[in-house]
């Protein structure tokens, strides 16, 4: 067993047979001068071309390469999560396998982590992509993500990020969270820094993402916000939904029934019934909240565990 490397460079590949060799060379060229023990984790996300073979070949020649092969294509979040799982370094750097990120930036990301940050996010300030189909939707999405989650990052979509291994390994990553890792990690309260990084136009192959869909991003972000803010007190969240409804229901009911009763005028069926609908719904929402408490209690997520990841003890 070789000593634990200081740095792990995690690169997911999906049908990148042309990129994987140059990628390997570029990482080696960029990291070797830093003079630290490092490893590369290449995750092959069920590629249909020769990516897997080439990765194995590289692993044979270079003992620092660890090749993880998926049974089939599972998507980028899964690839990142697997890379993080199988990486052993103290600092983990993730990047895209399509050469659009520049490994030369790894050094400055690493320096930032040494300064004491838990997460360093790359910002592609001169992004080399199409304006309408890529840049504008991403601007909107980033603005929304920042607003809702309270983690204002200018470029969530940039794969080039560095993490303190001990922190990121404990953050659950699933479905399509790879765009929101910093937001997701915010449940542990990490110090996050942003760094300008280089960005190159695609050299090989095809871009794998079309127009990002704002609707999906919006729902995902809401989920993250709910989870980060309320996972440990779900009843509170459901109360927040339920109470305005109860108030609305009561006032409708009041206007439709109690008012006319006092004044001796005719009751209003639509108003009274709507009031009842809102009131009963608020009760059901409260019950949902109770159910959510139960779910959380039986689950395996504890806030204390997250606080441990980043805490400091001063004496």
């Amino acid at each position, binding site marked *: 067993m070789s000593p634990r490397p200081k740095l792990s460079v995690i690169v997911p590949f999906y049908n990148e047979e042309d990129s994987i060799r140059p990628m390997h060379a570029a990482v080696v060229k960029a990291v070797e001068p830093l003079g630290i023990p490092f490893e590369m984790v290449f995750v092959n996300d069920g590629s249909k071309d020769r990516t897997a073979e080439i990765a194995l070949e590289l692993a044979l020649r270079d*003992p620092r*390469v660890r090749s993880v092969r*998926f049974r089939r294509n*599972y998507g980028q979040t899964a690839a990142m999560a697997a890379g993080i799982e*199988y990486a052993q370094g103290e600092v983990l750097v993730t990047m895209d396998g399509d050469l659009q990120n520049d490994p030369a930036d790894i050094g400055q990301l690493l320096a930032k982590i040494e300064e004491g940050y838990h997460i360093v996010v790359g910002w592609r300030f001169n992004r080399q992509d199409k304006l309408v189909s890529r840049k504008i939707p991403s601007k909107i999405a980033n603005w929304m993500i920042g607003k809702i989650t309270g983690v204002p990052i200018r470029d969530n979509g940039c794969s080039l990020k560095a993490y303190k291994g001990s922190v990121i390994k404990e953050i659950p990553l699933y*479905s399509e969270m790879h765009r929101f890792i910093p937001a997701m990690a915010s449940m542990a309260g990490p110090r996050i820094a942003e760094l300008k990084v280089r960005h190159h136009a695609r050299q090989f192959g095809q871009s794998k993402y079309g127009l990002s869909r704002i609707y999906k991003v919006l729902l995902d972000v809401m989920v993250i916000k709910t989870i980060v803010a309320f996972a440990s007190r779900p009843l509170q969240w459901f109360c927040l939904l339920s109470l305005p409804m109860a108030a609305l229901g009561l006032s409708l009911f009041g206007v439709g029934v109690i008012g006319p009763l006092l004044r001796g005028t005719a009751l209003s069926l639509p108003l009274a019934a709507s009031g009842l609908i809102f009131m009963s719904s608020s009760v059901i*929402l409260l019950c949902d909240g109770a159910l959510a408490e139960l779910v959380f209690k*039986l689950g395996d997520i504890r806030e204390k565990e997250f606080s441990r990841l980043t805490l400091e003890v001063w004496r």
Partner: protein
Amino acid sequence: MTDTVSIVVPVCERYSDVGALYAAYKAGAAALGRPYEFIFVLDGPHPAVAARLRQLLDSGEKITVVALTRAFGESTALMIGFEQAQGEILVTLPAYFQVEGSEIGKLVTALGSADLAIGRRWPRAGGWFERLRRAAFHKFLAAVTQLRFHDLGCGARALRRIVAQEIQLYGDQHRFLALLADRRGFRVQEVQVRQSQQDRFLGAYGPREYARGFLDIFTVFFLVRFTKKPLRFFGMIGVSTFGVGLLLLAYLAVARLFFDQELADRPVLLLASLLVVLGLQFFALGLLGELIIFTHARGMKDYQVEEVSQFPEVSPVRETGTSMR
């Protein structure tokens, strides 16, 4: 005993004479040219079948019989059978004449390039209405899952042991084994098998059969759409219901404010509030689903790793492993 083929026959609601069935299957298994074993799982008390199996045992046949005290369903029966199996290759066969016993070889051979082989009865007997029904069912499933299968109802399958270990079947899921295996990243292959002469079904199925088919579609739909991203699914319904309700409310508000129509005598108000409330409820359910996933995210993985390779300088031993749930 790794090249043993374990043949599991779950005896559920529908069965033929086991003696004749066993003889037919045995002939097929013998043609494999490798060791095999038979495991019959009695799903509930089937006295006639039990007596016949006892006879077979007494006459010296090498079979294993597992008797369940009540009917747990075919999925459970299969899982119990797999537990008893010794071989690396498992074959499931229906307890009635559905495919020719001689087709077992084809299924096992298909495992050379796949992890699960499922039979497709072809050419298939049956009236035009039956064909239409079957085609519609599989078309619909294909639309939901993007997977094209022709005969999920076929009980003849061959699978590697690892498939049975990773997929825990319950309820009626034995009918979707092929879909579930594919979703878990296994290679699934359809194999054409000859239908048994006695599997001709010429009448029309009863309403129960249709209800079951419909439920199957529903189940698959949820398995595929719901289990990963509940809020995407419920949110879609919720947002549209909520939106329609909100539009109606806006219309009412405009009518009240500018055209002086009393809110009190507008029955549309009822519909609007119902829709708004319903939308919120859907949304809340979706969030509840997301919470369940989040609180169990550590236990489940979105991916299956086939192999991890690294070649350390010191020892040229290849470190490989398969991560399992």
